[in-house]
């Protein structure tokens, strides 16, 4: 399986670490809503089809990526930095990213 890192380009899955369900929302650090905390820590969407997930390019640029991947076919339909759009990241990062977005 290949994941097209917005910075590094297409790389083998061996370079990435899976960080799971990207739909989870962490409660505010001071939140006392224990149901929300429990849901965040333990409950996962586990769809058969497109899945919004977080991967780290741990064997490359180490950025975290938001990947939409089909769990039935392993087909990847989009990859983006988790850290927003990295506005003003200038020339470093944008070119490859545009390519990835065009593909998606």
């Amino acid at each position, binding site marked *: 399986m290949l994941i097209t890192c917005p910075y590094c380009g297409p790389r083998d899955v061996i370079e990435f670490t899976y960080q799971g369900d990207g739909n989870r929302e962490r409660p505010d650090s001071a939140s006392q809503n224990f149901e929300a905390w429990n849901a965040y820590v333990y409950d996962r969407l586990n769809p058969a089809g497109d899945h919004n997930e977080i991967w780290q390019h741990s064997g490359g640029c180490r950025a975290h990526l938001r990947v939409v991947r089909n769990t039935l076919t392993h087909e990847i339909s989009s990859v983006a930095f988790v850290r927003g759009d990295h506005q*003003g990241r200038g020339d470093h990062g944008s070119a490859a990213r545009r390519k990835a977005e065009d593909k998606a």
Partner: protein
Amino acid sequence: MVERQSPEPLSPLEPEFHVGSHGNFEHGVEIILTETRPGSIVQLAAWPGEEKKLIAAIRTVTGLALPDGAGGGLSDGVKSVFGFAPGKFTVADEAEGLAAAFAKVVTPAIGTVTDLSHGRIAIRIAGPKAEWVLAKFFAIDFALPAFPVGAGRSTTHHDIFAQIQRTSADQFDIYVFRSFARSFWKALCHASEEVGYEVQ
């Protein structure tokens, strides 16, 4: 000769660094391996939006003007620089003192400077079979159009994290963690035996 302020740092490759020709060299040496031992290796990282200022700082300190694009870089044979992650760059210099020089121009508002002069080992692989041998380790495309001269790549060989800069058509400088360097060096020599290699 580069002037050093403190004793010569020890290379972790030492006991496994055997100058001379090895492997299938009777049929011609197609790989040259060496350790470049830069005096400084520095990591620079910009805060989002501050990349241009950091690139300007790199130019100020090294005189190198970074080209555009992810992983872009260049080398003048003494100093080298390349991007390896969004807003992050590796800079190497034959001389010591790069971290101190950058500390003066990279203000906290621009980003951070991390001295890795001791933490990374720079191994140079050159020769017509350099791409062939590196392809045994790393799952990245080493062909010239995909990996142009000057450019940098972050990648891994199993547990060994590496930053690779192409410093000419058939020459690559590989930065690996010091603790892994001897293992990697041994593997690199082993993989080069097939084509004949020389350690310089």
